[in-house]
């Protein structure tokens, strides 16, 4: 808490509920996370752990029947949850850029990409059509699209998936936001394009000096991109560590499981892929204690009755984990 002045995004106790026929079920349970200025944060977890919902909730873009029950999210010192709609619209696109998961469906199919790029510029920066168009060309060049002068005339369906994701990134960056939230921006792309997109964001982050939150379920992909990683499991933060420390010395059994699941080139071609047994708890049927306890190889009695807090791991600076078995895990490793 020493670098509070440097905090760009500070989320505290964020709880998201989904309305069901049997009352409301908690999907995100009191998440704490923060992003410093100029920092790149990786948010990792398997499908349904609440990664995307958390980010959508920051911009108050949650779908119907899903709502923030508790918590606050300060961006640049202002609480996003209590902001007026008018202020919020300025933040959306203006201060926080968003890149969505599926570039195939996240662009308006009947609008030329140049116009889609120009829209936020006209809206947030008060540019005229001509000026916005020029800037659109620059942005397309910035994200590495060849022939941007002609490309601004193209419709989304005339571009390949990788190109569209570049356009999405260009739109997200249009107003030079302080924070870029990328929600699994590479999931819909093939592996070589994934690497290009990661390199692109890395490059742009340095050029523009912005913070980035990169949501993914692929720990290997972001190793070279992020400064710090937050691991989510069933709507809670289970580990929060600088990227090197996390890979070198994962403390939470879930993180270990995730890392062990990455196939290695040195593995026998015939060997089975590692996986974590069992499935995450369904919303509304969360176990009483640690949500990971039912799947955890190191689970103790206390894990089934008490929820572990996210606490600094002894003698490891900024490394925090929510596990009663941290020490035991250390020995097991």
């Amino acid at each position: 808490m020493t670098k509070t002045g440097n905090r760009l995004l500070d989320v505290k106790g964020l709880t998201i509920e989904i309305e069901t026929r049997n009352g409301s079920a908690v999907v995100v349970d009191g998440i704490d996370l923060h992003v410093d200025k100029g920092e790149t944060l990786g948010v990792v977890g398997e499908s349904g752990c609440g990664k995307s919902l958390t980010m959508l909730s920051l911009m108050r873009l949650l779908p119907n029947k899903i709502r923030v029950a508790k918590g606050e999210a300060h961006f640049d010192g202002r609480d996003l949850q209590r902001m007026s709609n008018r202020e919020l619209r300025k933040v959306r696109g203006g201060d926080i850029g968003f890149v969505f998961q599926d570039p195939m469906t996240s662009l308006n199919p009947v609008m030329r990409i140049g116009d889609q790029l120009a829209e936020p510029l006209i809206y947030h920066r008060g540019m005229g059509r001509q000026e916005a168009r020029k800037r659109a060309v620059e942005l397309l060049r910035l994200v590495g699209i060849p022939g941007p002068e002609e490309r601004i005339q193209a419709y989304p369906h005339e571009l390949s998936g990788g190109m569209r994701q570049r356009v999405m990134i260009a739109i997200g960056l249009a107003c030079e936001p302080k924070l870029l939230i990328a929600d699994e921006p590479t999931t819909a792309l093939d592996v070589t394009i994934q690497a290009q997109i990661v390199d692109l964001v890395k490059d742009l982050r340095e050029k523009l000096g912005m913070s980035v939150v990169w949501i993914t379920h692929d720990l290997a992909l972001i190793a070279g991109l992020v400064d710090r990683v937050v691991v989510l499991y069933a709507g809670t933060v289970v580990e929060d560590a600088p990227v090197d420390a996390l890979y070198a010395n994962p403390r939470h059994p879930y993180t270990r499981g995730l890392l062990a699941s990455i196939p290695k080139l040195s593995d026998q071609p015939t060997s089975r892929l590692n996986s974590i047994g069992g499935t995450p708890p369904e919303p509304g049927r969360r176990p009483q204690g640690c949500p990971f306890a039912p799947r955890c190889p190191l689970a103790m009695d206390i894990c089934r009755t008490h929820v572990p807090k996210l606490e600094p791991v002894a003698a490891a600076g900024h490394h925090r984990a929510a596990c009663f078995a941290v020490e035991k895990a250390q020995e097991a490793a």
Partner: protein
Amino acid sequence: MSAIQTQPAILAEEPPVSLWRDAWYRLKRNRLAIFGLLIVALLAFTALFGPYLTPYDFLSQDLAARNQAPSLAHLFGTDDLGRDVFSRVVYGTRTAFLVAVVVTTIALVIGTALGAIAGFFGNPFDRVIMWLTDVTMSVPNLLLVVVINASLKTPIAQWMEARYLATLNPFYRETVWIDFLLVFGSMALISWPPYARLVRAQVLSIRSRPYITAAQALGLSNRIILMRYVVPNALGPLIVAVSAGLGTAMVLESAFSFLGVGVNPPTPSWGNMISDGLRVWQHYPHLLAAPAAVLGLASVAFSFLGDGLNDALNPRGSK
């Protein structure tokens, strides 16, 4: 990287294929649709310029040449007052088009606005607007139009007469416009609900698409999202509905004129010509056949065009 950069370069040599160009390409290969399009174009041309090109005035009577069979001098013959039926059918095309275009435009504007609001903003707007739509649809069309005509026509005519006497402005003498006003108004009143329902359904499905969330994440206002993201994407089915709606409006106008609650004589309308022809069809079948055939042709043309547009604008439906 290089693979990515060369691929679009190849693509760029072809002209960009827009959705509309693509649709036009598919439409061109559909013979029935092109037939419909040609007929519609011909009718539109006739409506605009026809009355200036006909050999006779649609009102001029030639009592020496009454009820003549079709000949070179009178392509569709003459009616019981010796008026040239061809000229009257041509002028009737103008009436039909005027009514169809104006009524469809009003209905479209009302329907699109209400449907978009209902679909985009949800309850309570949705509930109220859909309730209004259901109520409007449940009233029998003909009955409503007859009631409007019967109850409003005389008061408006009297008011116009009073205005004329008070101001001596010749504008108030032009009673033909009362007919049109009442026809436009009453037909628009019953024609908007299908558009409202269609637009609402479209908007409901579009509202949940990722690009709408993406637009919201850009901080765009609801108005811009509605006008530039939602409505353009709902346009395809709407165009199809409009094409079919124009044909329906023409038939509806003829039906009202046939019943005597539409456009009144002497202004020619296909409907009142059919109505007149029906009384003497055993002796002079051409008086019924000419306007009825043109009406049928127009109706079929619009429906072929509508079907063709439906296929052309819906890439999933055709190969």
